């Protein structure tokens, strides 16, 4: 049995490793329970992947190949036509989504780390109340602010589309980024901050030279989280942009629901284009992605 000591800087792989200590059935021997379990696990893999099969198969089918009888069959003729149409329709919106998501993620992450530091390691009387008040912003249904929000953004003269959406994703991202950084900084030993203070470092200096350098794992988690949620957002997109200046979720919805004659091949190819950036992040940085998910729960 191994004893694990808590590392000063937690690794983002919060799921931990499977317990190795006890194993009921010795390795290699047949067991009904274990076989059933693997069968069940594989069964669910098939279920979860059904939409992926549908998406790929339909996207490669030509217009004449869409009869209901052949709904689940492979394409008779494989064609890239849908992919080209979808790309032409969506690529400007994909670019706008990128322009929106990158600044929104960076600014919200930076604000979150400032707040997280102050609320955990430079805290003061009332810090907990302030934190709870900020956190509540994470849970509000945005419908409850949408009407005046529309008037406010209009009144401030911020152009509809990317600029408005950046502002909204920053503002409504603050609660979750603050939460993730605060929870992370809670694990930083007090002595580290106290030592800096004894050396005469002020708050800003402590933050800049002690806290920021050890914050990189948290920044990755927060940036991924913000990137994904802003990229996938539809609600703000509907209320604050149009098909001319909106992000890819809005463009995809228009593509799929706009035409009189539904062309599922094109919409499915479009759905994949719209999901590629977040899927890529998930595949490459999956470990951190899960870290972000965990931090999304208030008590980890």
């Amino acid at each position: 049995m191994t004893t694990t000591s808590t590392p000063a800087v937690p690794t983002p792989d919060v799921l931990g490793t499977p317990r190795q200590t006890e194993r009921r059935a010795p390795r290699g021997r047949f067991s009904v329970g274990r076989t059933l379990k693997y069968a069940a696990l594989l069964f669910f893999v098939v279920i979860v992947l059904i939409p992926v099969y549908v998406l790929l198969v339909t996207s490669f089918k030509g217009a004449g190949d869409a009869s209901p009888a052949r709904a689940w069959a492979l394409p008779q003729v494989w064609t890239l036509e849908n992919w080209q149409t979808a790309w032409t329709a969506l690529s400007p919106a994909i670019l706008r989504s990128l322009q929106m998501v990158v600044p929104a993620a960076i600014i919200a992450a930076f604000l979150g780390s400032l707040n997280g530091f102050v609320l955990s390691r430079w805290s003061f009387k009332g810090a907990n109340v302030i934190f709870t008040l900020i956190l509540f912003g994470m849970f509000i249904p945005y419908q409850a602010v949408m009407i005046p929000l529309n008037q406010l953004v209009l009144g401030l003269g911020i152009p509809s589309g990317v600029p408005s959406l950046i502002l909204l994703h920053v503002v409504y991202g603050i609660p979750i980024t603050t939460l993730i950084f605060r929870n992370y900084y809670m694990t930083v030993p007090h002595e580290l901050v106290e030592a800096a203070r004894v050396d005469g470092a002020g708050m800003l200096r402590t933050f800049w030279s002690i806290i920021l350098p050890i914050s990189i794992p948290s920044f990755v988690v927060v940036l991924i989280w913000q990137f994904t949620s802003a990229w996938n957002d539809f609600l703000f997109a509907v209320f604050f942009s149009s098909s001319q200046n909106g992000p890819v979720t809005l463009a995809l919805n228009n593509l799929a629901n706009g035409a009189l004659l539904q062309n599922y091949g094109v919409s499915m190819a479009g759905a994949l284009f719209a999901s590629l950036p977040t899927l890529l992040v998930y595949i490459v940085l999956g470990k951190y992605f899960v870290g972000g998910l965990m931090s999304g729960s208030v008590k980890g």
Partner: protein
Amino acid sequence: MLKSLRRAGPALLMLAPSLILVGVFVYGLIGANFTTSITDNHTAAQATGQKPSVVVWFENYVDLLGSEAFQHSLKNLVLYTVVFLAGTMLMGFLWAWMMDRPVKGEGFFRSVYLFPFAVSFVASGVVWRWLLNSNQGEQASGLNRLFQIVGLDFLQNNWWNNVTWGITAIAIPAIWQLSGYVMALFLAGFRGIPDELREAARMDGASEWKLYRHVLFPQLSPVALSALIIIGHMSLKAFDLIMSISKPANYQTKVPAVDMYVFKSSFDYANAAAVGSILLIIVAVVIVPYLVRTNRQEKR
């Protein structure tokens, strides 16, 4: 006094940008929204300020809650939330439980189960609208066709086009997307239980069921609560899925978030705001006690 001010002063200064933003965009706008919701601002002329609006107090709320259409929306929201919660909790727990003991290829299973979380509701809606096609018999495609192929014809149904239960069909893609997230939460919960605890229970001769009932379930309950809160408040996101699978005008899949959008589109700002406030109250009743409780626990 002076000492605490010297500490709180710079801290508050650092928090200032976020506090102002959250203060205005969350709390200020909630207030402004409420103010709009108690007026007779039902027309475009009033929405743009060309005609004055008069305070009518809670008339809009009384009218909304008394109308059959809005009651249908609330009923739909409840149905959707119940199915969504039950589905994700059940699947998430089952998957985590199967992976609690060492499983070969755990990384693979985990990645497959979790990947739908990285996809936007709008993109998955494109595929699920195809899958949840209501045609049956000869014309069936989507899942209904698949049921025919595997010989489960009796499972064919008209999915989200059923007036009473249609909304629960919209919960299926939501379950598909978020079960992996709940699995990740539970898996972290399982791995957080010290092995000694299980060993001790086994030494005392506890049966496997008793072990779960008296040792593991109590340890998992905070995780389950977090999951319930997060998933529960996500059920308001049904908006994205409904917009992409059904249509805002469709009676059978109406929920308050969709009503709010429809009111806003027809420049009935007062009713849109009232729907928003009702949603806020529903969320706050659950969230505020949770946040306060979490805050208290941390102080201890």
